[in-house]
């Protein structure tokens, strides 16, 4: 059984966004790390992980229904 999350990959990671990122299907219990690996996202670029607006790490498990944002920090001025 799968659940839906609202996934957003920003900046350089945008090209890894799935077809319908706002209704992305996951297996409940999957970690952010596993999900990103399945999408082909280079893990070392996924520095900022936000789940429902809170900073989390790669090993946080998803249940379904979350808003997940992955952001590579930028440093330009």
């Amino acid at each position, binding site marked *: 059984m799968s659940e839906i999350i609202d996934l957003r990959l920003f900046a350089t990671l945008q090209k890894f966004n799935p077809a319908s990122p706002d209704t992305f299907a996951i297996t409940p219990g999957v970690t952010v790390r596993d999900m990103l690996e399945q999408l082909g996202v280079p893990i070392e670029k996924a520095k900022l992980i936000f789940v429902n607006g809170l900073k989390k790490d790669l090993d946080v498990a998803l249940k379904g229904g979350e808003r997940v944002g992955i952001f590579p920090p*930028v*440093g330009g*001025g």
Partner: protein
Amino acid sequence: MKNKRIESLEKAATPKKFPDGAAYRSISMASTNQLALEFGVSAREIDISALDRDIVPERYARNMKSFTTRDQKTLLESCVTVVGNGGLGGTVAETLARIGVGSLILIDGDSFEESNLNRQLFSTEALIDQPKAVAAADRITSVNATIQVTHHCCNLEDGNASKLIAGSDVTADCLDNLPTRFTLQKASQTAGIPMVSAAVGGHSGHLTTIFPEDRGLELIFGPPEEAVNLKGAEQSLGNLPFTVTTVAALECAEIVKIILQKDSPLRNRLLIIDLNDYTFETLRLV
């Protein structure tokens, strides 16, 4: 002497109306300059005395429906150090000068290059190869000559940072590299100065505020010893002028809030923007 100055100010004040019809008393730039000359003080001091009497220096008239005369006085008595005078720093310095932050310390060791022309407010064709901090100081003086401007054509380093930022109420991180961002954070925290840190790349940018006791940049970039080798995503995204200007404007809004309210909506939070789809999100870092 002080009474004489007040008398002259009262005489120089002229009745005016805001666009909504509300009355106020105004003092023109010419009158401010004349009184500064007459009493041997800076124009900024005359404007501060005027605000004390509820007389609005006309250059700040359109600030007044959002700020009180007391707020404007607080801004005029404040000092912000802008580190990096390129894309973010150019717009930040100009905006702070226009809104009336009374003292600006401008720090940048670089000179303008052609590739800066797409986004750096103070870069012009004539100023290629000229130092950014000098261009910034010249521009600020032409926009608002009452601002006390100090500029330093050098890079911020561990050895000079605490001396260069001394006396600031806020530091503005407008830098383009991580090691110097950490240097500025360390110096600001040691001196007890809040720092507003902005960064851009392509259509994206982020902004946060770091108080002396906060974990700060490591919450975004990881521990300093690892982060100094981190290449920001901007290296493969370039830098776009509308992103730079947007994030610089947000940085100024935050700086003014810190000065006036002694508080910050972005402390331990990260405002992320992505102009590809107009995402604006504020996320909790702790």
